[in-house]
């Protein structure tokens, strides 16, 4: 078996050639520390400034509102802890949803141990948060709402603009985790009206270990890493210039090619969904039928279990995921699938296949063909399956 089909673009992406090319000069030639005043340092600083500017422009933000981090998780931690502790005097209540990424949920749990109260909003069967419940949950102690833009497991897109409006009316900060949104939906921070938004480079064909937090001017937030004066004294540490330069290039490409990317992945994704639903029984498509990440397909195959499905796919060269990559260490079923109301036994049979820029039609057809065989084989082995 030699064929390799990568359908896990929501876990991470290969870096694009153009991104690597942009990064190359900064490893060993233009290697200066951006805080140094000599020519090596100024060269690095200039690259940093240009990168920051590109990313700011790409999302309609101001240069000074972009703060670089080591990735999406760090930025989630910073946004939530930073706002929570800086606004502790105003209140101790945070609202989030049941289907957030663990980098949001586990921070909320941490804050609960430190005197904060957290409301975890329900979602409907498609994974959309309940706006009425949101409105009713806001109290005069509420300081932050954190609702993700696009869900990483089932791909559902949230009504961010409406949430931002509600938050604004009630004078509450609004953070959205846009790690899965960037490059897959249009983003303009002012049009959306969000206060904080975070990104991760490796999800959009950029380098691993780089991300950013957009912080609207005026938002009260604590610094995240204390130390040197980097990132306007809010996030210390020698800047990862090659990484940041690569990130900026990836954002630039993502924004430039947004339409063609969406068209490409949606077409293949739809072909995959159609093929699976047509050829396999007892399968359920999770997430919103329309309002979803253009490359995301998430299925539950009844009577079989996710890991054995993944392993079988892997044996024929197909890389998929059951839920998010980070939970694969855990044996509990996905909290997202539980939140949309699936039973344990069905949630255990989930498979996320995410399509990306390098996916081809042949990849999809091969995957459908293999899936049919594998699902059947596993069902034949399953004590739950009766033909």
């Amino acid at each position, binding site marked *: 078996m030699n064929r390799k089909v990568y359908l896990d673009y929501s876990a991470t992406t290969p870096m694009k050639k153009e991104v690597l090319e942009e990064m190359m000069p900064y490893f060993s030639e233009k290697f200066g520390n951006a805080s140094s005043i000599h020519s090596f340092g100024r060269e690095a600083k200039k690259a940093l400034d240009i990168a920051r500017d590109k990313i700011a422009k790409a999302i309609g933000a101001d240069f000074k509102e972009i703060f670089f981090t080591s990735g999406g998780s760090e930025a989630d931690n910073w946004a939530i802890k930073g706002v929570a502790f800086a606004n502790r005097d105003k209140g101790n209540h945070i609202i989030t949803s049941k289907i957030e990424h663990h980098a949001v949920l586990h921070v909320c749990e*941490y804050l609960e*141990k430190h005197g904060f109260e957290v409301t975890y909003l329900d979602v409907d069967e498609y994974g959309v948060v309940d706006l009425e419940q949101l409105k009713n949950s806001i109290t005069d102690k509420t300081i932050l709402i954190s609702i993700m833009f696009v869900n990483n497991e089932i791909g559902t897109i949230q009504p961010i603009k409406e949430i931002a409006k509600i938050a604004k009316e009630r004078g509450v900060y609004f953070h959205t985790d846009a790690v899965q949104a960037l490059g897959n939906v249009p983003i303009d921070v002012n049009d959306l009206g969000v206060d904080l938004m975070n990104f991760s480079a490796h999800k959009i064909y950029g380098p691993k270990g780089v991300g950013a937090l957009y912080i609207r001017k005026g938002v009260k937030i604590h610094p995240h890493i204390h130390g040197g004066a980097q990132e306007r004294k809010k996030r210390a540490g020698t800047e990862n210039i090659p990484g940041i330069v690569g990130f900026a290039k990836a954002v630039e490409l993502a924004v430039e090619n947004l339409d063609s990317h969406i068209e490409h992945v949606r077409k293949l994704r739809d072909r995959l969904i159609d093929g699976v639903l047509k050829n396999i029984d007892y399968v359920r498509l999770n997430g919103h039928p329309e309002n979803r990440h253009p490359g995301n397909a998430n299925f539950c195959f009844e*009577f*079989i*279990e*996710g*890991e*054995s499905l993944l*392993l*079988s796919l892997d*044996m024929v060269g197909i890389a998929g995921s059951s839920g998010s990559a980070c939970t694969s*260490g855990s*044996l*509990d*079923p996905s909290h997202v699938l539980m939140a949309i109301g699936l*039973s*344990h*036994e069905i949630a*255990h049979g989930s498979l996320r296949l995410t399509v990306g820029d390098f996916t081809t039609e042949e990849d999809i057809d091969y995957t459908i063909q293999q899936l049919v065989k594998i699902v059947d084989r596993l069902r*034949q*082995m*399953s*004590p*739950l399956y009766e033909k």
Partner: protein
Amino acid sequence: MYNEKVMDHFMNPRNVGEIENADGVGQVGNVKCGDIMKMYLKIEDGVIVDVKFKTFGCGSAIATSSIATEMIKGKTVEEAVKLTNKAVVEALEGLPAQKVHCSVLAEQAVKAALYDYAQKNNITIKGLEDFKPVEDVHEHHDEDDEDEE
């Protein structure tokens, strides 16, 4: 993640299926945890002459079921009841730490099937006098959890 032997038993599981009118049938695990193992035994003169299984579960659950059937086939009831999860893991040449519990499921499935056989035949098998399969073999937390906050 899994070694070759495990992958072989996962991809080419031995003795998959059901036995009609089996002499002993055992089912362990539960859907909530995502694993169910069902074991069918054909026993003649105290010897396991045939064994089949069906498993809903992870790769390791399938591989341990498979090898467990191989290990007890042809054995006497008394020998089979001594099958430990440790022996299963050894036969598979190792399992990842967080997957060792799956082998407990296999051990339990064999015992449950033998217990069913004993019940049906009104006999007691040494070591299975008051058998009760464990409901959930998973440790839902890992070694590092305690020092998390």
